[in-house]
């Protein structure tokens, strides 16, 4: 057969081995071309009497198939505006049904079809194997099998929502599909997703042996007496599964993610009908989902943009690649210790400097405690711990910094201290070394004044806890040069985090935008809105924490101090209502925040949130308002942050919508279903967003006043992704 994406090999027994090998890609992805070829293959296998069976495997050693080509799909989702939505939907539906037709041909070809899964099989890749009568997978525990679509706002549209429940039951299937969790080969075997596990070298032979045994070439769901494992929604067990799953889904997703909702409906409705009807149901939900802005935005930000940034999209193209082998970390506190840990984890030697050797050792102990927790959870081993810690060299001697390629300063947030450390360090490090500050608040340009070589001075802002937060915000000072940026990005990629690049400003991009969220919560409190409502609606808007809970974590005393400093800086006298309130909390009531167990909430000894402080609830004599419009409150929370991001664009703090969106979601948990603040504004439309801001400004305060950039964009009907179109390399 003449195939582009597969290699065809028929053996003497009449068994065809079809080796998947997409040209020009390092990993197989399920392209539309491959689907057409699978249909051809199915027809040939069905009609050619010399063919006794089919084994599908991969010619690429790293993966069976990584899933559908999402870049093809983004093209689909955003393609031409000329077609009416109905026609676009119908065309997409036909396309999906063609895929189902091809897969149905394969599983009903009348001859045994086996999948020899020699590497990861995700999404569409796994779905192809589900259309085989037999699945055997290599015994490599690193192999992942799963349907991760929900993580990027999609649903498995290749029959996954129909075939997985029919194989493993609704409960297991929902767990796997709703969360997009993957399983390893042993787990897959245990739940019945695959039939056998074997060493890689034996896979194809074992699959052929299965075929030679003349097995039943009929899928379970095509047999007359088929019943859904665990029972359908109107059996007693199944009823409970669906009832609880519906409630838990709302509990966890707040109704913000159409993908999960549609997955639930696909599984529910599909479980009550034959497979062909089930596939039609899934296809309709899939197409409907593609037409929701949430899925397009999530694919773009959480998959495509994150992948691009993770490959160094923002790196200066011409700068030579640096391999950071040794890094110096200044300050061995929690941040310094965390930075030392993630660096050592990626094979980088770390010189960890603090004022005394005891303090420096404490930083390494912090790294050790992080690994200990992972050992407890079975994610690391004592051997790995020893190896990682052996790369961290605590010292009180700046001279030890001589060999470093990069220095990351993580000392106390005080300009004088930072300046002194900069001088001491530059006296020791090599002329080529890059100096970075992990400051979260102080402008880089100012800090660089202490440097003899400000073009080699940059900000590398980590988030806490360093070991778990995937984002790093790289800050360009006025004089920061391209080589410093390239080195910073090379380092961030080496420690497998996602870098965004921003220009200097107080609070940079992330802290500055996030601050508006808590301030909005405080404003609502001042309006008399019930604290529980502020917190619940904040989470319902998609934020990871209520605004008051964030205040508790940051410290209400800190907020009070900042408020007073700002007032002083602006030369204002007297106290406003906000300051009165903060002062009442901190100074009158002794509730500075979570660190003392007392803030807006009461906390237990372990710092776990217990309940809102009862005296706060009873403090308002006229009672708290509960009549505020919930949707409007959500809009206020998301709008004020997005507006601040728009201001960052106008001021040039941020220049690329990918940075804005990925940075917001990974950095401070901005509602992921929106795709990030620039996607949020783009989806609403600049004109509508400006109108909303003006409405909010007139009712809730000047802080909502839209900036000139947005007005300009509204007038010209522009989007962030259009006006600030990222420079993309040809795929």
């Amino acid at each position: 057969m003449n195939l582009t994406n597969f290699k065809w090999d028929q053996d003497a027994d009449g068994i065809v081995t079809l080796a998947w090998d997409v040209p020009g890609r390092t990993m197989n992805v399920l392209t539309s071309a491959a689907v057409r070829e699978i249909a051809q293959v199915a027809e040939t296998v069905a009609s050619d009497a010399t063919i006794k069976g089919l084994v599908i495997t991969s010619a690429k050693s790293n993966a069976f198939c990584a899933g559908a080509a999402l870049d093809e799909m983004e093209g689909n989702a955003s393609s031409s505006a000329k077609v009416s939505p109905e026609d676009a939907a119908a065309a997409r539906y036909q396309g999906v049904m063609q895929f189902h037709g091809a897969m149905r041909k394969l599983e009903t070809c009348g001859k045994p079809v086996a999948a020899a899964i020699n590497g990861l099989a995700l999404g569409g890749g796994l779905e192809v194997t589900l259309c085989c009568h037999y699945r055997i997978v290599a015994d490599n525990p690193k192999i992942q099998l799963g349907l991760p679509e929900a993580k990027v706002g999609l649903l498995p549209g290749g029959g996954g929502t129909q075939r997985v429940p029919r194989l493993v039951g609704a409960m297991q299937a929902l767990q796997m599909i709703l969360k997009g969790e993957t399983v390893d080969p042993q787990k897959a075997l245990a739940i019945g997703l695959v039939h056998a596990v074997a060493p890689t070298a034996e896979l194809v032979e074992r699959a052929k042996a299965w075929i030679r045994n003349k097995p039943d070439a009929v899928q379970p769901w095509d047999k007359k007496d088929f019943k859904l494992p665990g029972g359908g929604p109107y059996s007693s067990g199944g009823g409970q599964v669906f009832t609880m799953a519906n409630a838990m889904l709302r509990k966890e997703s707040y109704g913000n993610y159409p993908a999960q909702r549609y997955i639930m409906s696909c599984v529910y409705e599909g479980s009550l009908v034959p497979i062909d009807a089930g596939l039609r149901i899934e296809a309709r939900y899939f197409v409907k989902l593609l037409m929701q802005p949430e899925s397009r935005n999530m694919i773009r930000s959480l998959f495509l943009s994150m992948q691009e940034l993770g490959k160094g999209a923002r790196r200066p193209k011409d700068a030579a690649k640096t391999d950071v082998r040794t890094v110096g970390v200044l300050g061995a506190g929690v941040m310094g210790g965390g930075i030392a840990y993630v660096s050592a984890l990626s094979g980088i030697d770390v010189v960890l400097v603090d004022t005394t050797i005891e303090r420096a050792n404490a930083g390494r102990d912090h790294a050790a405690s992080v690994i200990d927790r992972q050992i407890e959870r079975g994610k690391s081993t004592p051997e790995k711990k020893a190896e990682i810690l052996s790369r961290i060299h605590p010292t009180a001697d700046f001279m030890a910094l001589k060999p470093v390629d990069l220095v990351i300063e993580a000392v106390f947030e005080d300009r004088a201290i930072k300046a002194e450390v900069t001088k001491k360090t530059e006296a020791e490090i090599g002329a080529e070394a890059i100096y970075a500050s992990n400051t979260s608040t102080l402008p880089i340009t100012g800090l660089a004044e202490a440097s003899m070589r400000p073009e080699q001075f940059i900000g590398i802002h980590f988030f806490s806890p360093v070991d778990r937060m995937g984002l790093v915000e790289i800050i360009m000072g006025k004089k920061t040069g391209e080589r410093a940026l390239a080195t910073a990005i090379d380092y961030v990629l080496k420690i497998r985090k996602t870098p965004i690049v921003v220009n200097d400003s107080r609070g940079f991009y992330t802290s500055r935008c996030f601050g508006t969220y808590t301030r909005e919560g405080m404003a609502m409190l001042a309006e008399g809105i019930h604290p529980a409502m502020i917190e619940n609606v904040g989470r319902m808007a998609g934020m990871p924490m209520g605004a008051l809970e964030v205040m508790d974590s940051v410290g209400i005393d800190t907020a009070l101090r900042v408020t007073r400093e700002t007032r002083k800086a602006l030369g204002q006298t007297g106290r406003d209502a906000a300051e009165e309130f903060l002062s009442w909390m901190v100074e009158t009531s002794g509730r500075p925040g979570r660190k003392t167990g007392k803030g807006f909430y009461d906390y237990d000894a372990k710092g776990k949130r217990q309940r809102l402080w009862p005296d706060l609830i009873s403090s308002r004599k006229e009672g708290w308002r509960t009549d505020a419009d919930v949707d409007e409150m959500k809009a206020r929370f998301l709008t004020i942050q997005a507006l601040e991001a728009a201001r960052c664009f106008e001021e040039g703090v941020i220049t690329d919508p990918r940075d804005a969106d990925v940075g917001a979601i990974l950095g401070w948990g901005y509602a992921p279903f929106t795709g990030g603040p620039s996607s949020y504004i783009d989806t609403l439309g600049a004109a509508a967003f400006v109108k909303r801001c003006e409405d909010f400004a007139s009712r809730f305060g000047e802080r909502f006043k839209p900036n000139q950039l947005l007005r300009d964009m509204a007038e010209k009907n522009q989007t962030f992704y259009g006006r600030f179109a990222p420079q993309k390399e040809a795929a």
Partner: protein
Amino acid sequence: MTECFVYDAVRTPRGKGKKDGALHEVTALELATQTLRAVRDRNHLDTSAVDDVVFGVVDPVGEAGADIARLAVLNADYAESVAGVQINRFCASGLEATNMAAAEIMSGQSEMTIGGGVESMSRVGMGASGGAWPVDPQIAYKSYFTPQGIGADLIATLDGFSRDDVDAFAVESQTRAANAWKNGYFKNSVVPVKDILGQTILDRDEHMRPDASMQSLASLRPSFEQIGEFAGFDAVAIQRYPQVEKINHVHHAGNSSGIVDGAAAVLLGNKEAGARTGLKPRARIRAFASIGSEPCIMLTGPALVAEKVLRRAGMTKDDIDLYELNEAFASVVLRFMKVLDIDHAKLNVNGGAIAMGHPLGATGAMLVGTVVDEMERRNAETAMVLLCVGAGMGTATIFERV
């Protein structure tokens, strides 16, 4: 519009809705049959005068399925010409059946009808008829499905009813029911359930706990705390009512309606049909209504439907002498009294479902008999029967003495 009169109302006693309940060995069909026979025999009724029998059943499956109203007509040896239909308005089914049977008369399309209801909760089981609401993601999601008990606890949380408040209400329900039984207030409508030998199987409400006290109720654990927390329903309810930080779970078996078996029937007719058969009208149906309310909290329909039906009747809440509101959960009744500012002295004067039980499809029709008897006993002029209804509804009917 033709006037519709209540000529008679009967009910079975309520048997504990468990395997050891007295009525567990009696079929649902037989319960319905015995109420129809009682209506016929007490009134020397020529059943060929009856046009239709409307019965409410909440779980109309198995032995209660396939239009049990028509089967009961046949089993009770009514004239072959009497039609039967089974309807479902969840907990208000018995009252809705009465209203629909009345509507046939008021619209001039029937002369004489019987409304009623039956539920054998011990034999068929609550929830046996399934339904899409909790399981179909589309509707579960859209309507913030939570089980009723969570809604009842949510009402208590929002309205500030404490555990003591709801328990005190429950104790009062028991006291009133015990007093009513002791003084024979129910004897006019209750017809004992008999076996085929004519022996009495049950002649009293079996679920009552007249010895219940604040102390004894205090030992009961909240029924909905666990599913609220672990199945995620509290979180669902809070997303619908975000002003709530935490749901205060106050309801338990002792301050919620009891699970019981029973049936009831109400004989209705226009003036002429009654005169022809020599019957004396006992009450007139003045107005009735149903209404939809917010489905997540589910149980706030009574106040809304009361206002609606009063408006229809051109009356105010003070024009009503007696209220019978089904005691699905204590908070439902407390909220109704609070919202409409109604004195407990004229509401559920003989106790309610917390004491005597709530045979889902039958209760509404049972309350008709209870309230008509009580209007006569205390010579009251007007009464309203109303119930909260699943999926967020309420149904109410206003009766007048003739």
